[in-house]
């Protein structure tokens, strides 16, 4: 039997209420795993942003326009990764509390597309530079 104070704490003081307002407390191991997944996505976003900043600041020999385009694509992908980190954490935690199937990872395809696009920009710009 859990004390009533426990359930009050679990539902009332925790933010966001969209997550903690309903459902039951999941196994702590799963909440911790969800937290680590969030952190992994944040680090992915940080890495993409760091590369974007570096591309912006260093000279790659592919021309300033291609370089800014590359930095923009990478920064945008980093933004998607960090927003997805939060959104995924909220959706997974809510699903676990309400005992529903976990949401899919559809946003992951956006990050894949962003990294692939950055690769295409780099290859095309390098080839064009080599030809001219």
């Amino acid at each position, binding site marked *: 039997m859990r004390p009533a104070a426990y359930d009050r704490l679990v539902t009332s003081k925790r933010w966001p209420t969209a997550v903690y307002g309903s459902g039951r407390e999941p*196994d702590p191991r799963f909440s911790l795993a969800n*937290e680590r997944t969030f952190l992994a996505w*944040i680090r992915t*976003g940080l*890495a993409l942003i760091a590369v974007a900043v570096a591309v912006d600041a260093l000279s790659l020999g592919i021309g300033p326009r291609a370089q800014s385009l590359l930095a923009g694509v990478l920064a945008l992908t980093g933004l998607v990764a960090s927003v997805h980190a*939060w959104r995924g954490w909220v959706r997974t935690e809510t699903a676990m509390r309400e005992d529903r199937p976990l949401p899919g990872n559809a946003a992951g395809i956006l990050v894949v597309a962003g990294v692939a696009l950055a690769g295409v920009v780099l290859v095309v710009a390098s080839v064009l530079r080599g030809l001219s």
Partner: protein
Amino acid sequence: MTREVPARDTGLQQERTALAWRRTGLALAVGALLLTRLTLDTLGTAVVVPAAIGLVLAGWVISVTLRGRRYAAAHPDEPSFDRILWDGRVPAVVTLVTASLAVGELLNAVVQLLRA
């Protein structure tokens, strides 16, 4: 209702999570320093602002997760909840700062693209 209390520390979940927080804190610190170094020429002394915010946040993330019993306050009656995530505030702040770094760099790239 009784809960099956899982064997304590199965799979070292708490340690792995604490280490993941520290990695992220360090990544934030490195990111802030890199941003400082590489935008020094374009931003001038204004670069101190994002750098300070990033470093303070990184220090805070690391110190919060170094505190041994961070999760205990949420679950005083359940020892198995010793370190469960308290709620979504810390993740929200970390997300906001990371996203603003991305927006800042994105704006910078767009401005440069328009000028080029």
